[in-house]
């Protein structure tokens, strides 16, 4: 992992892998969407609106996963001073925020016909909203603080404090009475939904995660280029 954290080594490994990862993401997305929109049955109670689950749930999983990546990278930056750890955390944030927004927005769109309300302040929805605020706060730190080391130090703290919210999101439906339904896939005793619905959901979940990997590695390569261009610009200014 220390070797991979070297920018040159990272690029040597990531560049040839990226086209394959993008291709895998697109194939998985196409397969997942076919299952979600064509083969999966309508729900006996919710009817066709259950199809919102195939984008809402994977987006929520990915929003939590991306925050986990951010917090892990921030911890690595503190403990091991990996040269790429802060950059890895920084570029994961906008991707995670986008998927967090998708989870919140598609949840609202699903909630209106099923609950009769776009939004309720129950524990699951509120904790996801707090996750979105942590994403925005983390991004704001990088935008607002110009000096890299100072921004990285503050951002690490925000990422690690916000990580406390991840188990709260996951277990909110167990710890409190919520309008949001409890877990039906990752729970004790195994999934409680039909296999016809489960496989498209799992494929979409995998597709979103592989897409995250493709986006994250591309954004990290881009961040390395940006830092190199910044150093070159400083070199140009110094040489004049």
């Amino acid at each position, binding site marked *: 992992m220390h070797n991979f954290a070297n920018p040159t080594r990272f690029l040597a490994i990531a560049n040839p892998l990226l086209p394959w990862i993008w291709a895998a993401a697109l194939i998985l997305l196409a397969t997942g969407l076919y299952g979600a*929109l*064509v083969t999966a049955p*309508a729900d006996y109670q919710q*009817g*066709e*609106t259950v*199809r*919102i689950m195939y*984008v*809402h749930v994977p*987006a929520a999983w990915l929003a939590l996963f991306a925050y986990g990546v951010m917090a892990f990278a921030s911890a690595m930056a503190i403990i091991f001073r990996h040269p790429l750890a802060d950059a890895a955390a920084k570029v994961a944030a*906008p*991707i995670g925020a*986008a998927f967090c*927004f*998708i989870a919140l*927005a*598609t949840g609202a*769109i*699903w909630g*209106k*016909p099923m609950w009769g309300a776009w939004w309720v302040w129950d524990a699951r929805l509120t904790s996801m909203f707090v996750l979105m605020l942590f994403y925005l706060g983390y991004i704001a730190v990088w935008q607002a603080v110009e000096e890299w080391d100072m921004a990285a130090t503050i951002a690490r703290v925000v990422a690690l404090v916000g990580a406390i919210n991840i188990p709260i999101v996951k277990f909110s439906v167990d710890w409190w009475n919520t309008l949001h339904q409890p877990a039906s896939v990752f729970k004790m005793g195994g999934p409680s939904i039909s296999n016809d619905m489960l496989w498209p959901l799992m494929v979409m979940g995998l597709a979103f995660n592989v*897409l995250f990997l493709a*986006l994250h590695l*591309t*954004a990290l*390569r*881009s961040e390395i*280029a*940006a830092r*190199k*261009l910044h*150093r*070159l610009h400083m*070199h*140009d200014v110094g040489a004049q």
Partner: protein
Amino acid sequence: MDFSATHIGFVIAAYALTAAVVGGLILAILMTDRARARELDRRKQAGLPHDH
């Protein structure tokens, strides 16, 4: 999928929103990556330092 079902508009809206956000994210990241790679390449072509 039954396009005549009640509430089908909510399903279409959810997928359209997801496609717009994911598509926008992919485009933004790819275009930024390409622009920075082009800038490094431009420096290399111009004989400026490009590997600092």
